[in-house]
């Protein structure tokens, strides 16, 4: 493989909840770096205990698999004080950023305390975002929520996951926001997404993610088969994440 790969969007759930299977994945793919977003225990609105359980599993994998595997701290900002404390704890244990899912919208003011600390440490936050035909989950962000947050914190580093699903909308929504990166992690395989992202955002704001355990090679092949330069592919697959997280 001519490219190094950093998969910034992997969950240790389903088959990856088994450390042996996860180890097999690391070995067979040879992925250079991988960032875990945790098993997101506790459903859509997890309690502080469930959040800590989720992060404990991420920390466990970080310990088991060494510097190749990094982790983002998952929080539920509906519990604002706990979110801040949990982030500070996990950051001291080596986690490299924050993960937000669907408990509340990312631009809800309750998220501010933890985000301010994340950004003060110059760490990024990865935000799940989607826009679904049949309607989103109650606290599930769209690109519009990410845009509002990015404007509130222009110096903060924000990763909008999945290109917000409806990628033609998501990409254009964040086009002019230099502090927003995107990943195309997940099972949407529509051709044109990476090409449009490079055209609209430039080649420096796109990260590679799989939403593992979604098939790694299927996701990788999207980039390899995209109509992009080798330089753009190298940046997407590794260089941009290396720059963002270092």
């Amino acid at each position: 493989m001519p490219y190094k790969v950093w998969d910034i969007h992997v969950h240790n759930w389903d088959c990856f909840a088994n450390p042996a299977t996860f180890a097999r994945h690391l070995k067979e793919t040879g992925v250079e770096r991988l960032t875990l977003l945790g098993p997101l225990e506790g459903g859509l609105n997890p309690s502080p205990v469930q959040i800590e359980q989720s992060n404990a599993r991420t920390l466990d994998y970080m310990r088991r698999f060494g510097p190749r595997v990094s982790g983002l701290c998952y929080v539920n900002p509906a519990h604002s004080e706990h979110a801040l404390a949990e982030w500070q704890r996990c950051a001291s244990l080596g986690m490299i950023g924050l993960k937000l899912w669907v408990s509340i919208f990312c631009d809800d003011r309750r998220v501010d305390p933890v985000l301010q600390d994340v950004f003060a440490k110059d760490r990024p936050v990865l935000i799940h975002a989607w826009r679904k035909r049949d309607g989103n989950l109650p606290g599930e962000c769209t690109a519009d929520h990410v845009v509002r947050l990015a404007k509130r914190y222009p110096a903060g580093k924000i990763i909008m996951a999945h290109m917000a699903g409806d990628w033609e909308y998501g990409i254009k929504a964040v086009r002019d926001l230099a502090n927003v990166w995107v990943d195309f992690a997940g099972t949407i395989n529509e051709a044109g997404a990476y090409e449009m992202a490079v055209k609209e955002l430039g080649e420096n704001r796109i990260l590679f993610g799989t939403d593992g355990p979604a098939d790694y090679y299927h996701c990788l092949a999207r980039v390899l088969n995209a109509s992009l330069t080798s330089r753009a592919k190298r940046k997407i697959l590794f260089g941009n994440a290396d720059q963002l997280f270092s």
Partner: protein
Amino acid sequence: MQQIDSNLYFGPCPIRALAFEDKPDQLLKSVQARKGIFTSFSALFHKDWAAGLTRDTKDWKTCPGAYLHGVTNPSLAGWRSDFLRQREKLPIVSVKVFPDLHGYGLRPLREAAKFAHEQDLPLVIMRRLVDDRLVPAWWRPRPKPLAKVLAAVQGLEAPHVIFSNFQPRELDEVMASKAASPHWRYEVGSFTPSSFWFSSLDQRNAVSSLLYGSGAPLYYPAGSLMIERSGLSIPKIKDILFDNAKLCYAL
């Protein structure tokens, strides 16, 4: 490794501009497939599907290695004779139906299956064109419950029934169903499964009924790398990528 890509598209796509829309030969080269089976977007979306297919295939004689899915709408008048007329002049290798887009019930689906059997062609059932979460607002029909689709094709005598554009989890459900027949085939490649999915299918001896279809150019042709790196044996990979489609579609 040689490939037959059994799920390619050509013609003008109603959702977005795609590469190669009027150049099926270049698309074949781009996806590195020796042979490919194409679905015409105009045949899918035009009410007069036969005229849509005619329009999209006007330069078809220049495409060796390229075959056509015989997209039809069995709820419209004259569909049988239209199909036969198209088959006389074009390299049609299947009867392909999209019941959820065309909005018909399951009786026309059974009629299409009977017709496919009479014509000694496989019946391809298309479940969706795009991910359900991204279906355009103007596109009303939604996939029918899987159990009803299976009930409609259970016991039918088409040479093969091929499930196209089904999500991997749906294929798991179909394969595990009591209704599943040894004549059924499952197209894989356009949608992303979970890691080690092929290993789990192999353990259930289900790999022999798979055939490869990328969904290009609507989808990235990502499936062949996935299959090649699946950990399956070389003969099984070859079957999925080439031999099963060759047999099924009599190419």
